[in-house]
């Protein structure tokens, strides 16, 4: 017994049992041969396994192994030749079925033969390096059936034809297909690859080449993609049903190549239905299909991405350069946001939130937003509009949503400092006129700006909020201290603003009416009494006033006007008519502002509390103004010519631009000094590069300006040029 440790040892036969009968081998073989015949003829039940096994055992033991093996090969071969004939004779559709049936039978017979010849399989075959019985059976099947000239091509053609039939929508016997193909896979060597897979792939390539030509001629892009996707899924399903799983990659490759890769440029650029049209019409399904199909082929996605990028740039460019659309800044920004939303949605719905697509979208926006130098101003105006009125009655989450979107646009800006400048101006106006809808929203936006650009960026904005808060406290203190002293005079509200935190205003004062002046003086004394070392100056151009007025027929109105307008109207308490020059003299309001105020007081229908002579739209220097006794209005409160943040006029724009440029100078200088302090010696190009890098988060400095700043620093002896290499700068401590 070989357990527990198995060792291979050969047992010599008994000497005395050596069979002397020379016909012994012949006789034994005849028995076995007969058994094989019987097995092939389904007659095995009468056979004794033990007897056959013993015979085979004895043959091998008595050195007739060679004879046994050769006999087996011969017998099996002759049987297979018979089988081949019967398969060949099968007509039409029966061919495959006959083949399948014979294959099953052969397998069964082979199993039995292997079992009775097991002893040979175990001892004789390994020692003589012959093919084991089972493999031998498969090889003989392959050589005699599959490679039989009258079967080989017929089999291949039949299989391919069936696949073709299935492709055209007919139903075929998939079980049979599966069995036959499984047979090809079971046979060793590359029978499956040679006899089926290779021709299958070739035929498929031809088929799809033709079909794709036909599709592309008569379908639009969306339909084509639908068809391609359907074909692809069909092939994958087909492989899973009755082919080697390894073929899946190969056949999908063929389909991808023929249906997608070779037509992808044509598809993307197809008139009226290509990628651009899909983007325009928000065809999420089609776009998603295109994405999932194109990602399968090399360069597919980058093609989509490139076309999308150039499309977005194109429409973006139109958007930001169309003078029609620049008229309304709020609308302009809203359009940008809509555009962004639209493409964000496309990317998330159709493009699988692909990071590279998001980056492409972002870079496109960055590209075209900065094409228009007024973008920062418009974005700030948009925020202004939203914070003034747009967000009334909107929930907190929605406010956050809008602000986040604005921040996203802000991120695209290269000139962030320009935005800051405008934002400061608009915020100042909002705060001073008390037009802010929500303090929370204001603060939330400032926090966002802070996280984006750092403390420096928002410190002044925060200072503005602090000023507003302290002013409130101061006013309370003032009235508490004065008490009855000021009770019957006009109510004064002062906002004390820290110089520097607020946008610098040309301090054009005007002469305040004596009633107001009195209260103002009292406040000044009070304020300077509580705070030492401060100076107060009145910013009359930024204030507002509420006036109560009685008109000719006794109707009372409350007029909400600016400080300038208040000064003008107060003059009419003492006179019914005044000329332009008289007003100018009395108030000393700068001419441009005065004209604007008079225009809004006298020329706007429904708000014309003054009457002008002669009646015209423009204010001329020799016009005369009268109190309008006949003024009528449905409302008790009348709002006149409020200071609304308007799109800047051309000269104002120039001015702001200049201020921005001016503000950049010290920033650039500071950056240069910081860099040089660390590096000591650096050449020109590197300085420019580093400065640009440092300031990138705020604006893109112009190299020419940087050069000028360097020169200025050299003049002031912060830096010097190297004596040998003129391109090198040294830092002078």
């Amino acid at each position: 017994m070989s357990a527990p440790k198995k060792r291979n040892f050969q047992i010599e036969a008994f000497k005395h049992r050596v069979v002397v009968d020379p016909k012994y081998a012949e006789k034994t073989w005849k028995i076995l041969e007969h058994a094989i015949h019987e097995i092939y003829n389904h007659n095995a039940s009468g056979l004794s396994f033990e007897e056959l096994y013993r015979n085979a055992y004895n043959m091998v033991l008595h050195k007739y192994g060679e004879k046994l093996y050769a006999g087996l090969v011969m017998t099996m071969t002759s049987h297979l030749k018979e089988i081949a004939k019967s398969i060949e004779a099968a007509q039409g559709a029966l061919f495959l079925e006959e083949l399948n049936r014979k294959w099953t039978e052969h397998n069964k017979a082979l199993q039995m033969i292997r079992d009775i010849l097991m002893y040979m399989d175990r001892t004789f075959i390994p020692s003589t390096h012959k093919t084991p019985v089972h493999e031998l059976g498969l090889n003989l099947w392959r050589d005699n059936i599959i490679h039989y000239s009258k079967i080989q091509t017929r089999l291949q053609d039949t299989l391919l034809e069936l696949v073709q039939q299935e492709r055209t929508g007919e139903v075929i016997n998939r079980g049979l297909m599966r069995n036959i193909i499984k047979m090809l896979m079971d046979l060793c060597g590359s029978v499956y690859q040679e006899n089926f897979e290779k021709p299958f792939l070739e035929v498929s390539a031809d088929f799809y080449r033709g079909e794709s030509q036909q599709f592309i001629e008569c379908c639009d892009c969306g339909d084509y993609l639908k068809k391609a996707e359907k074909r692809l899924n069909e092939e994958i399903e087909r492989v899973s049903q009755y082919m080697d799983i390894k073929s899946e990659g190969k056949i999908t490759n063929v389909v991808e190549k023929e249906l997608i890769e070779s037509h992808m440029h044509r598809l993307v650029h197809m008139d009226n239905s290509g990628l651009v049209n899909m983007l325009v019409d928000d065809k999420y399904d089609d776009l998603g299909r295109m994405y999932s199909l194109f990602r399968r082929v090399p360069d597919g996605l980058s093609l989509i991405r490139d076309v999308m990028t150039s499309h977005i740039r194109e429409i973006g460019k139109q958007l930001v350069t169309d003078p029609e659309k620049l008229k309304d800044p709020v609308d302009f920004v809203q359009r940008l946001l809509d555009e962004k939303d639209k493409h964000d949605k496309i990317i998330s719905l159709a493009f699988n939130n692909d990071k590279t697509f998001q980056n492409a979208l972002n870079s496109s926006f960055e590209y075209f937003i900065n094409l228009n130098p007024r973008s920062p101003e418009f974005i700030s105006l948009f925020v202004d509009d939203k914070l003034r009125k747009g967000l009334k009655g909107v929930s907190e989450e929605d406010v956050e949503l809008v602000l986040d979107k604005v921040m996203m646009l802000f991120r695209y800006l290269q000139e962030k400092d320009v935005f800051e400048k405008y934002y400061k101006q608009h915020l100042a106006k909002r705060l001073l006129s008390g037009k802010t809808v929500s303090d929370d929203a204001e603060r939330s936006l400032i926090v966002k700006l802070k996280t984006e650009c750092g403390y420096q960026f928002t410190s002044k904005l925060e200072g503005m909020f602090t000023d507003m808060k302290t002013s409130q406290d101061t006013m309370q203190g003032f009235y508490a201290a004065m008490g009855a002293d000021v009770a019957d005079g006009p109510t004064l509200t002062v906002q004390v603003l820290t110089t520097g935190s607020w946008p610098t205003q040309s301090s054009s004062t005007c002469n305040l009416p004596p009633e107001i002046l009195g209260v103002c003086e009292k406040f000044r004394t009070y304020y300077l009494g509580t705070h030492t070392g401060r100076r107060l100056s009145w910013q009359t151009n930024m204030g507002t006033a509420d006036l109560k007025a009685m008109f000719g027929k006794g109707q009372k109105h409350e007029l909400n006007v600016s400080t300038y307008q208040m000064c003008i109207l107060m003059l009419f308490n003492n006179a019914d008519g005044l000329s332009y020059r008289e007003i100018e003299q009395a108030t000393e309001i700068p001419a441009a502002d005065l004209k604007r105020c008079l225009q809004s007081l006298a020329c706007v229908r429904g708000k014309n509390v003054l009457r002008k002579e002669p009646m015209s739209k423009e204010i001329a220097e020799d016009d005369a103004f009268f109190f309008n006794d006949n003024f009528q209005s449905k409302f008790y409160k009348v709002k006149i010519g409020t200071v609304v943040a308007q799109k800047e006029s051309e000269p104002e724009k120039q001015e702001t631009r200049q201020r921005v440029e001016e503000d950049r100078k010290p920033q650039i200088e500071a950056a240069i000094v910081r860099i040089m302090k660390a590096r000591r010696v650096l050449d020109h190009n590197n300085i420019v590069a580093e400065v640009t890098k440092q300031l990138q988060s705020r604006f893109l400095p112009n190299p020419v300006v940087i050069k000028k700043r360097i020169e200025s620093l050299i003049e002031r002896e912060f830096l010097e040029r190297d004596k040998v290499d003129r391109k090198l700068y040294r830092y002078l401590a």
Partner: protein
Amino acid sequence: MRKEDTVKLISAEGFEFVVDKKAAMVSQTIRNMLTSPGSFAETEHGEVTFPEITTTILEKICQYFYWSLQYASILYDSGKESEFHIEPELTLELMMAANYLHT
């Protein structure tokens, strides 16, 4: 014990041993005999005749089947050896039979 779970092993002298199929299948040859897809006479009748194995040897073989069934796996796991006693005079014939039965 159901009949289909057992197999009858018949010695050269005609002595019958009824053993569990599970035990008999310790021999690869018998296993093949009983599981081969075609229905050989042995599978149908549930008996196998060994005209070249004597009763003594077949008895020893059957003992070994059960011993192996019980201990082979345990031995393998624990590494402990449990002796299967073989009388020296049987050794040669037993080994030949083992070769034949592929045990």
